[in-house]
């Protein structure tokens, strides 16, 4: 077994495109959440949306960080791909550039692609149905290839020349984090040297919005702005558009290529709650966090920071708050806690990886972005960062992701030894 590290990060988020802008926005505590003009299903909603132009031009997502020949090749290859795929290629291009994968490649058959995606093209499917519902024999044949989530894997492997193992991982809102779990497994058993792990931009259609709002998961904005995660007046999540890519690489491969390690993945654990529904399971969350600590050979006292899944739903926030308090109950100084969804919205399939990027950005930047004010928080409450960014030299972090259907993921990430 070899150690898994992170050597490249990419992000396309309403908070900013590219690691530098995204990190600056986290440090500033800037929220990208605002009113969602023309929300589907005629609802009044808040959201953190990408500018409409993002995704139209992939070069704009990778220009400045990628070598020009790669930019040209990518722009040509994805010219007619659907918007979520173009955005994913943009995020992946950033990670590839940071990891110097174009100049110092790993062998093609040792490079994999794992994509966290769980029905991310529902909105496109709705549009196809509207256009061709009365004449299905004229449905554009391309949709046979482009509508399934797996189109992301095909395009990413073609663009970046990956010939190793690859697939989609579906685990509802934990898909991105669950994809990282599988990539870490492939790298640590020696099947791959490196793996591009992306979380797909999850477009919401009118049916998704109607169902999620009806369930009480998606918060309406009729009565004013939606309170942030862990706020005691929480009433649901705010949708966020985003995609992220993490290049997972074996420590040996990173050393061979001479590229810097941004962070180590000390453990990546996924569990099921045995629960087909939408409700969280506090005991399952506790068990997953403890399993990650055990596998990493760490004790709770070593964890400096928890990037919570916390979406803003009353059931989910309270279960996770209790679970975190339990796991770190014996710590003299429990870890700081915040929830990146307060700033990015809930990026659904991509959320877990957007939050891995946010976690590593904060560890490396020596700061933790704001959370809800502890005075307004749920009880029991974990040790929240509070309304102002803190300068904290955190080295070890836990990042949680949960999904409908009892999916539970905890990732233990740490800075490499200086």
């Amino acid at each position, binding site marked *: 077994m070899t150690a898994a590290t992170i050597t490249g990060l990419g992000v396309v988020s309403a908070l900013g495109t590219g690691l530098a802008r995204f990190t600056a926005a986290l440090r500033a505590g800037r929220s990208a959440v605002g009113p969602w003009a023309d929300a589907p299903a005629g609802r009044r909603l808040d959201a953190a949306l990408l500018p409409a132009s993002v995704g139209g031009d992939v070069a704009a997502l990778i220009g400045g960080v990628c070598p020009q020949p790669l930019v040209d090749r990518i722009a040509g290859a994805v010219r*007619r791909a659907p918007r979520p795929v173009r955005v994913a290629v943009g995020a992946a291009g950033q990670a590839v550039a940071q990891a110097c994968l174009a100049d110092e490649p790993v062998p093609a058959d040792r490079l994999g692609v794992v994509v966290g995606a769980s029905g991310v093209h529902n909105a496109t499917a709705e549009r196809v149905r509207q256009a061709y519902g009365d*004449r299905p*024999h*004229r449905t*554009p*044949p*391309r949709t046979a*290839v482009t509508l399934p989530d797996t189109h992301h894997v095909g395009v990413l492997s073609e663009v970046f020349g990956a010939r190793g193992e690859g697939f989609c991982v579906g685990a509802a809102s934990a898909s991105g984090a669950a994809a990282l779990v599988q990539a870490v497994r492939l790298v640590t058993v020696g099947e791959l040297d490196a793996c591009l792990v992306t979380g797909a931009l999850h477009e919401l259609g009118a049916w998704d919005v109607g169902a999620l709002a009806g369930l009480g998961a998606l918060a309406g904005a009729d009565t004013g702005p939606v309170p942030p995660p862990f706020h005691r007046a929480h009433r649901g999540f705010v949708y966020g558009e985003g995609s992220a890519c993490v290049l997972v690489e074996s420590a040996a491969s990173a050393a061979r290529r001479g590229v810097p390690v941004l962070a180590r993945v000390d453990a990546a654990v996924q569990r099921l709650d045995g629960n087909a529904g939408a409700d969280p399971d506090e005991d399952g969350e506790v068990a997953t966090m403890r399993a990650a600590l055990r596998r990493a050979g760490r004790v709770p006292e070593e964890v400096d920071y928890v990037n919570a899944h916390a979406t803003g739903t009353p059931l989910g926030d309270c279960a996770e708050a209790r679970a975190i308090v339990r796991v770190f109950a014996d710590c003299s100084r429990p870890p700081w806690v915040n929830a990146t969804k307060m700033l990015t919205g809930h990026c659904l399939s991509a959320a877990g990886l957007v939050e891995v990027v946010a976690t590593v950005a904060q560890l490396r930047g020596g700061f933790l972005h704001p959370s809800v004010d502890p005075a307004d928080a749920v009880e029991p409450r974990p040790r929240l960062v509070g309304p102002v960014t803190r300068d904290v030299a955190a080295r070890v972090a836990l990042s949680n992701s949960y999904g409908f259907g009892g999916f539970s993921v905890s990732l233990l990430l740490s800075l490499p030894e200086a």
Partner: protein
Amino acid sequence: MEESRIWTMLRETVRTVVPGVRPEALRPDVSLADLGCDSLDRADIVSMLLDDLDLDVPLTEFRPGAPLAELVGTLRRHGA
């Protein structure tokens, strides 16, 4: 519609889908596959032509690997 008009539309559609193809390469005896189009490109081209010509013809009417003359002939037979 005049046959030359359909050929013009075909050339424009091919250029949209596969920008690398030279217009003079579109001869009656070559197929879309000969021009370097993969199966998705070919289906897209036929599909877009049917939309532009406002024809409701099942895509299965178009024989894969047919020369362009046959493709244009099939369009005309269905009313283009």
